[in-house]
């Protein structure tokens, strides 16, 4: 009795014999891979191997590793998640050409771009084999397959060039007819830190061989593959005609790390405050108790044009009411294209109790800082509701309800920046209607507004308060 193959220790014995067709190259590649493991003394049980769908994708199922399997084309997406969470787990992906560059092509170029630290072994059998021999993006021009009965009219992908263009840091192509080179290539890939792609052009006696090459003889197919490839180093001496229709084999790229690329598994950890963008919640206040009397008005529309800070004004008002006033508030706003230029609006409802319906049919107060916005939203204001408008921007129709013209933009311009008109209005609203107090308004400006605008905004708010006080004393 012959001695047991020592490489079987890497396999799930109970899964054998494997399901590959007689003469298929997948068995050879599995052999090269386990040889590489043996040479490097790597423990397959401490690895994750991944296969998608297809003949090649079945290879990891025979390995005694943890394995993800059974979804077409998503091998690299899985690997990205694992590698980001547990960068130290070695990952090897076995993918056919259909899996990797047809359905999974987008993931391939992005994993290469990110220099994801994985080894991809692509067995290129030049067609979709498991499904019965259909054309693939790697099928040579002119080949007859089950879906190109008149010959393939599309040029084939050069997968190695594709991966390099996308940023892969280790790329080799070999053929099953070069066993020693294949095993060495896999070893280099397993030791490479970054994205490796080893493409192994392989024979498919059952489909591509029979349909395209008119032979199911593995030996003849192996010879065809060998004859239709040439070593990279010989390329310079060959004419274009000699290279026509043939694939170069060799080491295309082998760099520890391409300049400018960052492996996703090497991302930094940031700390609170590192980000120039605010990561905090907008003011965490203690749960203040609500005042016993309901503030009036409760249902407000703040409107104007994009860039006037209408949304910010509504957020400051709501934040002060909730975090400082102990009230409930609901704010909704126009978003998308509407909020970028043109008129915009924010709706705010303030109440002592939780607010249910988020949309009020009839408004108690309309703030209008832009003519178009005034015309759009005035119809939703109750007849006896309050209209507050910017005297420089809006000319309202005569009405019977309380109406306040506030020179907000003019006042802001006098203070040095017309963009502070929203704060003039907030000062006016706070002083005149008591939704929040002027003190609460200043407090919220200090905690919420960018430091660069804080002084201006506080001055503008105070100017608004002064305008409202003047009103108390006898009109505009």
């Amino acid at each position, binding site marked *: 009795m012959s001695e047991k193959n020592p490489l079987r220790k890497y396999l799930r014995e109970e899964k054998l014999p494997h399901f590959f067709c007689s003469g298929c190259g997948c068995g050879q590649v599995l052999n090269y891979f386990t040889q590489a493991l043996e040479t490097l003394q790597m423990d397959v049980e401490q*690895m994750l191997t991944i296969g998608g769908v297809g003949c090649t994708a079945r290879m990891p199922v025979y390995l005694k590793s943890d394995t993800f399997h059974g979804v077409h084309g998503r091998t690299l997406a899985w690997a990205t998640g694992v590698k980001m969470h547990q960068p130290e787990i070695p990952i090897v992906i076995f993918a056919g050409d259909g899996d990797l560059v047809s359905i999974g092509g987008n993931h391939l170029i992005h994993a290469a771009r990110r220099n994801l630290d994985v080894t991809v072994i692509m067995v290129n059998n030049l067609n979709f084999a498991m499904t019965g021999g259909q054309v693939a993006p790697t099928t040579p021009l002119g080949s007859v397959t089950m879906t190109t009965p008149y010959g393939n009219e599309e040029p084939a992908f050069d997968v190695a060039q594709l991966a390099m263009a996308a940023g892969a840091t280790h790329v080799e192509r070999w053929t099953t007819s070069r066993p020693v080179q294949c095993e060495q290539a896999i070893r280099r890939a397993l030791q490479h830190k970054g994205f490796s792609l080893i493409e192994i052009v392989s024979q498919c006696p059952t489909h591509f061989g029979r349909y395209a090459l008119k032979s199911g003889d593995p030996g003849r197919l192996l010879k065809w593959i060998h004859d239709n490839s040439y070593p990279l180093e010989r390329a310079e001496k060959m004419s274009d005609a000699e290279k026509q229709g043939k694939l170069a084999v060799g080491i295309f790229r082998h760099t520890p790390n391409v300049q400018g690329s960052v492996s996703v598994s090497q991302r930094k950890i940031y700390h609170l405050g*590192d980000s120039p963008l605010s990561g905090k919640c907008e003011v965490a206040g203690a749960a203040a108790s609500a005042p016993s009397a309901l503030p009036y008005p409760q249902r407000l529309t703040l409107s104007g044009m994009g860039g006037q800070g209408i949304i910010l004004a509504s957020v400051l008002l709501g934040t002060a009411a909730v975090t400082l006033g102990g009230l409930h508030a609901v*704010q909704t706003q126009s978003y998308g294209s509407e909020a970028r230029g043109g008129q915009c609006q924010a709706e705010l409802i303030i109440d002592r109790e939780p607010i249910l319906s988020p949309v009020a049919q009839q408004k108690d107060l309309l703030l209008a800082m832009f003519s178009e916005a005034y015309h759009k939203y005035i119809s939703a204001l109750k007849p006896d509701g309050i209209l507050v408008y910017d005297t420089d921007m809006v000319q309202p129709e005569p009405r019977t309800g309380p109406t306040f013209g506030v020179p907000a933009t003019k006042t802001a311009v006098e203070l040095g920046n017309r963009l502070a008109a929203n704060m003039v209005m907030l000062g006016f609203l706070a002083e005149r209607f008591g939704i929040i107090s002027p003190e609460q308004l200043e407090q919220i400006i200090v905690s919420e507004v960018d430091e660069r605008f804080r002084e201006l905004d506080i001055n503008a708010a105070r100017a608004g308060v002064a305008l409202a006080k003047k009103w108390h004393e006898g009109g505009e």
Partner: protein
Amino acid sequence: MPRPLQEQADPKRVQTGVHFLLGNYALVEGAMSAGCDFFAGYPITPANEISERMSQRLPQVGGQFLQGEDELASIYACAGAALSGAKAMTATASAGFNYMQEGLGYCYTVEAPVVVANVMRTRGDNFATHADIMQLRYGASGDYEAIVVCPSSVQELYDYTIWAFNLAETYRNPVIIASETTIALMRERLHIPQPGAIWLQNRRYTEKTPADYLPFAAKANAAPDMAPLAKGYHTIYSLNPHDEAGRIDWDPDAFERLYKRITGKIRENEPQISRVNRWMMDDADMAIVTYGSEVRPAREAAVLLREEGIKMGVVQLCNVWPVPEGAIREVAGQVGHIFALEMNLGKYVGEIQRVVAGKVPVTGLTKNRGLVHTPWEVVQGVKEGVRK
């Protein structure tokens, strides 16, 4: 190191206090409190604020953020991260959720606990809708059961996100947060409790050696224990039918056993999973049964109807999948007429009718105009329904 089965929230992740916060941000804070440490997503409105805030918040606590090249990359990255031990989450909106169905099918079958936030919207714009309510349940191929929670406010977006992670970990099942434009883009009062008041559930890891470990063997109606990845347990996580040992197996006995278990662990635990909220039900003659932001006008409508002498109550289904069948049957035993209120042209009403089984009339109140019902629309719909 695997997390303990139960633990309190990490104080470094919890921003205790009262906030006035955007719904999408509240969801992120819920995920942060729940221990989420991996997020992958692809840009789409109105879910972008989730990705944006995640990209700020996760790196502050050692978590990982990925902007995937598409929705498929995002959901599968979550699957990979979840199987390697992470509490993983993605967020998308209706059209993007379509793409994620494929990856969700994988997660159901290999029992990967991922949380997916779907901010439902109309095609091509951000109008509010409940049109996805069936695709949340039935989108992927294969036999499986979904868990879908439906928050109705900014506070519930925070609370239910923690609940979603706890359910995902308990049942090793994807859990979907059915958010919607109404609440996702709304700012509202949010109270974040002290970390000590937030209890988290984590997946159970095996105590067995690799030789004794069967990755997909579990007690009846329970999730199997997990093993750490790449630590000698050589588990195959395949979408293909597999037996208790994880071997790909097309023996009908083996795969029916698998499908029975992954559906059974949700179906049989429906009473443990389901939550409902009830208002004005003690003396109700009729009830509005609803979910998501429609709860809000429903409660106002009930008050208005009571002013006119119609004793209406409201029942909120906090989860729509699995269907809270016991709670719905109880409502049917209590009132004479049920109104199913939803923001689509009539989808979930069919589930309520199935459970009620003709015991009392069930009338659908539908709307698909990009906005939640107004209370007056609900009042009018109820009156018309009563007359019929």
